[in-house]
């Protein structure tokens, strides 16, 4: 682990799944901070600092975005597109984390410049393993651009 405090923005509408992700990260000491939003609209508001996330203190820029695809109000692909077309946000790695195994979704995600596409495993052991690897790969091995100070 590097000394820097790493921030993950978790975009997940399913409370239970969000809880599973958070617990796994916690057990493997993956991240310092996880910010959880529950739909696409909130995600955009967080990233672009609008609405209830208008204050910069409430919405520090994340080092990684974990993005579910099927989201209420604004879906994940739309969020991905907006992030990747924003000059300030497009450097942030976006990892799609979804239960969809559909090729169509994977192609759409990669075409919109997703950095990775991961399918939530149903099996618990695999889920745990994925969370661990995900943490190590993206947050330890992977060289992330230094998030600008907020």
């Amino acid at each position: 682990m590097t000394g820097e405090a790493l921030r993950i923005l978790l975009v997940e509408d399913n409370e239970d799944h969000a809880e599973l992700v958070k617990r796994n990260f916690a057990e493997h000491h993956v991240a310092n901070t996880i910010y959880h939003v529950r739909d696409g609209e909130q995600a955009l508001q967080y990233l672009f600092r609008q609405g209830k996330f208008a204050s910069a203190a409430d919405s520090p820029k994340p080092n990684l975005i974990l993005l579910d695809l099927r989201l209420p109000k604004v879906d994940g692909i739309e969020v991905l597109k907006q992030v990747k077309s924003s000059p300030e946000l497009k450097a942030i790695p976006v990892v799609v984390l979804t239960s969809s195994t559909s090729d169509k979704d994977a192609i759409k995600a990669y075409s919109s410049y997703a950095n990775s596409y991961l399918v939530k495993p149903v099996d618990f052991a695999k889920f745990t393993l994925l969370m661990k690897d995900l943490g190590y790969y993206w947050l330890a091995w992977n060289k992330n651009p230094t998030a600008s100070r907020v």
Partner: protein
Amino acid sequence: MASMRHERGAALKRFSAVFFGTRTAAVVSTLFVVAAAVPIYSVYHEIMYSERVVLPLGDKTPPRARLALDVPTEILVIGSYHVGHEFGDAEMLGILETLKAASPLLQPRIEYLDTKYYPEKEHYDRFAALIERKYGSKRLPVVMVTDDPALDFALTYRAALFPAAAIVFCGINDYTPQHLAGQQNVTGIAEALAVGETLAIALALHPLTKTIYLLDDHTATGIATRHNCEEPLTHLARQVDVHDVDPLTRRELVGLVRALPADSLILVLSYSVFGDGEVISHHALARLLSDSSRAPVYGLHEELLGYGIVGGRLLAGRSHGAAAAELALRILAGEPAASIPVVKTTPTRVMFDDTELERFGVRLDELPAGSIVVNRPVPFIERHFYLVVSTVLVILILTTAIVALGLNMGLRLRAQRIIEQQMATLETKNAELERFTYTASHDLKSPLITIKGFLGMLVGDAKAGRFARMESDIARIEGAADKMQILLDDLLELSRIGRVIGLPADFSMTAVAEEAIELLHGTVQTEGGEIVVAADMPTVYADQRRVREVLQNLIENAHKFTRPTATPHIEVGWRAEAEGPVFFVKDNGLGLEPRFFDKIFGLFDKLDPASPGTGIGLALVKRIVELHNGRIWVESEGLGKGATFCFTLPDTRRPMGRKS
């Protein structure tokens, strides 16, 4: 009414789509038709009226008398004038064709006395010498003569030239028995010209006539013809001046005729020689007079007709000659000439020239009954009947083919449209199905991940002896399992809707709304809200159970989204609109933004992930309404302003499950 008019408009549009393609093509083809109308009209006029046909003159078919001869027999025919004198030519034609038809052994020999050019008596002697030289040695049985000079010649010289021959004459003007005094073995046909009748006809057709000019050339023939007029002139129907024209040169005659007023009338008696000896043919004379004169010109000989005379009762040289030839054949067959009396009447026909009738404004119905009109425009269709009929038939067949092809194309277009519609329906269904399987698998997988994930957590916690989180984790697992069950139930219900729809019946919407509220076990009221049902909702014709489900879902949905701050108030009612009654379920709840108006009816689509339910309810409602050929939509003025769900159930009285 309006829809019928609309349908007719659509049919017309389809028709023009088939036949014209585009508006530009329609304009172009209309211009083309207008431009084509002009030449088509002129062709029509050409076909119906323009062609004038001159009927053959003296076209009376000569009787085909037969004569049995053993040896070749010569018969001498002496013409008074020359070839080119049309009346003489016609007489000769009638004689020759009758003789030739009677027997191939009959050999007519023709000589012309040529008296128009050589009127002097010395010429007769020279001609007699020629005849003597040519025919003196032959015993001619019959000598035929046409017109007065030739008869004079024959009677004078017969004793010297052909004492044994019988003489048959024709074309004799002013015939009296004195002509033949002291002669034997002579018979023939007198040229009886219908002067009186022709004048009567002319005066009837030109009632303003004041003066009649009689035109003869003062030759022997002319004088004889003029002499013939005396008696008829005394019997004229009314008083007119009669003038004789003195011998004149061509130039003088034209000058005289030009000066004649329009209320005069010219009758050509017999005119072949001008005062200075210039000879003129019948055709040229008729043309000259007609072109120079403002007055109508009448005549007595068919040979003038068609060249400028209006008409008259006319004698045809051809039939005149033919009649004389028949007398000759009788003599050759053995009948003594003396026993054949001179024929004093000759067949004449009342004839007119349509061009001249038009010029003088004489209508066809004014003409005497039985008149023959030459130069009449003969309709093309009369002369080319079969050509016209076959052309019209061909056009009809082609038109039928075009119409048939057009209809066929219409049918094809319709079939194509149906196919396109079905393709669109199929594509929609396919997309729906794809979405259904995709979302179903996703939404079923989600709780499964939760269940397995927290079970794993539980196992770990149990082993480590950590009990703090166990209860809440088990609750999560239970929640996920419940969610799966509801999801499966709803999915089953939704799939049944597509296939099972009950028989429609008439029922009161108010009653069904109250039933639906009953089934909700008063949830709304028990939690302090109120629900109002309009008492006057109309009767609908639909599947009652499904409509109850619609109301149940909508009321449940309305209740789900009440604002925490306000008392829930739900209204079930209706309003009358042009398309029929619109039913609605209105709440004072959270409301929604316009961009979600369509999305909320989608399968598994929820606006708030935290809200209860599977996201199937409104999809179910939409499917039921659409299976009844109705529409469903939501109205809301925005967040916090409440929402109104509206739907229609048209009374189609048609089989259910068909989308229009």
